[in-house]
């Protein structure tokens, strides 16, 4: 039955899976290929994928979660990674818990760095891709839009993002301790990953004068460099570039080290020992850890930057409690909306609403008509009831019809919005005659 559809979420994040596995799961070629491979799956009614450097998550609407899950995992990761290999690292949520998890992710409560703002942008990009691929429909559209507004609410009502913490923030903070002032310093991006891009943007707003981009494929480098009004170079030119730049952010997908200690040592004399600050956010590492041993050279990888960010952790955790409350509230609201998507409560609510309207209007007219006999009153009531029934006949028929052409939930949604049932339920729950009774009937109709 279409009505027993549930929202399910499966995924891995920095807490459940090692970097190496996350790296293999990540969708390096963008969302289009994996979304395309899901489009044919019957088991999935709706789906959406999120891939960042700390998490890979899949949200889908289905009737049989177990079947849908294995179909999805096979389509996405087989034969490279089997379901059995993944299973110990996967978390899975369904229904209310899935909604809650998604909201927590959007509000950056589940991030490696709680409160960082990058995740929302990543979520929006992921959603846009899924929507374009027609993976999201009524439920996921609503769910993700809700997730964005939850994130916004958390951001404005709590101070969780106040210290704007993220890898980029940590990079700027450390850069200041090394260079004193970032004004006029030059940055080099090796590899054109999203994290590096964000970090570069952050550095630019803090006074860095130019960003050079080195990439394996020059096209991507040129495109990114143009965005920063910088210069694009090939990977082979990196050692040469080290003479001019001050901050280097490396994030290539290369399997081996791309810069070794000796190469860096070689440039130090040429740059008169001016400090070099390397940030390695690539997994696996791009930069030789021994680089940090050189004088006036500082190398940080993701885990090290974490230490910088930990400094103001306690503050953020206090605010996180507030954020959790907001999320709990929003999850409840979403649940109510979801429940209303079932046929029975919608029919009852619709009937009640139309009858109430008709009754109100007849009562007004009855007062003016000055009816004396009970028979007259009864006739008027009958007429009102008949009117209500006639008005309801077609919408109810439309709701109950077993047509494959338009999905049940779309139909419910259409009727609900034409009759403004959600507005009434949300704004005046106590006045809405069925709001209280609409709860536990999920999946029954």
């Amino acid at each position: 039955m279409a009505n027993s559809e549930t929202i399910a979420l499966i995924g891995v994040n920095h807490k459940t899976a090692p970097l190496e596995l996350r790296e293999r799961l990540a969708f390096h070629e963008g969302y289009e290929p994996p979304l395309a491979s899901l489009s044919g799956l019957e088991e999935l009614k709706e789906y959406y994928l999120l891939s960042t450097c700390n998490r890979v998550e899949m949200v889908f609407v289905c009737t049989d979660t177990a079947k849908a899950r294995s179909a999805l995992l096979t389509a996405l990761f087989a034969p490279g990674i089997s379901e059995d290999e993944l299973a110990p690292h996967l978390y899975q949520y369904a229904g209310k818990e899935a909604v809650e998890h998604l909201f927590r992710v959007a509000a950056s409560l589940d991030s490696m760095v709680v409160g960082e703002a990058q995740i929302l942008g990543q979520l929006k990009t992921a959603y846009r891709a899924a929507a374009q691929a027609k993976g999201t429909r009524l439920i996921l559209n609503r769910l993700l839009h809700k997730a964005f507004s939850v994130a916004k609410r958390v951001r404005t009502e709590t101070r969780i993002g106040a210290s704007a913490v993220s890898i980029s923030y940590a990079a700027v903070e450390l850069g200041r301790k090394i260079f004193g002032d970032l004004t006029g310093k030059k940055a080099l991006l090796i590899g054109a990953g999203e994290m590096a891009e964000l970090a570069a943007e952050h550095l630019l707003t803090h006074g860095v004068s130019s960003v050079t981009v080195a990439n394996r494929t020059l096209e991507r480098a040129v495109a990114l460099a143009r965005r920063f009004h910088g210069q694009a170079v090939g990977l082979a030119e990196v050692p040469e570039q080290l003479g001019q730049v001050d901050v280097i952010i490396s994030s290539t997908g290369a399997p081996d080290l791309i810069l070794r200690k000796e190469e860096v040592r070689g440039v130090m004399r040429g740059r008169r020992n001016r400090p070099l600050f390397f940030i390695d956010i690539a997994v696996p590492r791009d930069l030789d850890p021994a680089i940090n041993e050189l004088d006036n050279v500082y190398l940080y990888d993701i885990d090290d930057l974490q230490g910088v960010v930990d400094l103001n952790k306690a503050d953020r955790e206090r605010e996180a409690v507030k954020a959790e409350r907001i999320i709990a509230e929003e999850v409840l609201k979403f649940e109510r909306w979801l429940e209303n998507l079932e046929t029975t409560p919608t029919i009852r609510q619709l009937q009640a609403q139309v009858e109430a309207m008709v009754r109100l209007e007849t009562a007004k007219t009855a007062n003016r008509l000055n009816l004396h006999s009970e028979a007259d009153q009864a006739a008027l009531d009958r007429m009102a009831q008949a009117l209500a029934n006639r008005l309801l006949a077609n919408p109810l028929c439309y709701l109950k019809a077993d047509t494959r052409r338009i999905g049940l939930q779309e139909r419910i949604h259409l009727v609900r919005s034409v009759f403004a049932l959600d507005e009434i339920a949300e704004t005046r729950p106590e006045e809405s005659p069925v709001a209280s009774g609409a709860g536990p009937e999920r999946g029954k109709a």
Partner: protein
Amino acid sequence: MTSFSFLLFLASLALYMLAAAAYLVFFFKEQTEVRQKARQLFMTAFTVQALGFAARYCTGGYTPIATVHETLSFFAWGLGCCYLTLCWRFSVKNLGVFVSLLVLLLMLGAALASRDLILPSPTLQSVWLPIHASLSLLAYSFLALAGIGGLMYLLQERTIKRKQFGLLYSRLPSLEALDKLNHHSLSVGFALLTLGMITGSLWAKQAHGAYWSWNPTETWALASWLLYAGLFHQRFTVGWRGRRAAWFSLVALALAIFTFWGVAVLFAGYHGQF
């Protein structure tokens, strides 16, 4: 009158102590009002000490930069002077704590040394003596400041290299600021040291008839001057900086201080008579 100048000395010692305490409180608590108080205390102590020198000059009839008590005290005052002039130019976070502690240490040393007035013997008396002594001590003050910058640099560099973001990381200034401090103080200090050497040699000519006589003080002074000259040269030509420069300035400072106070104790020389 002696007791009056000594009273001023004691007053400045007490004020330096309070200033150092206030700077320490600021270091741990990071309250801006405390820093203002500390700076005011330090400046008051500095002024009171200057008055003390004036009083001693009036009493003794000679420039009071001769005995160990006087030179230590003048060294401390010179360090305060360097610090206060640097404060105008650029701010280095929490430099005050380190400077005030060193000043306090020097003042305590001065307080323990004999404070008798010893008039230099007529052969050594010359117009060059106070000039040589004050220039050299001011040079030491700047070089000591360079050393403090170096020490702070080494501490901060350690936290950044080892990625231990504890107490020091947030309280110490940026590496760049510390390196600049080291560089600036070294440049001024080295120039003053050179002038100190020249005036010292002129004084030797007047007192003994020879510009240079290879006695222990002169030899050690030349050694430390060469060390500083080497550091100065490396900084300007190959861009030595950071950890190496910081270590070097600390070693050179130790040698310079040994030249002045250590050699006097170990060998006999002109400075030995103090």
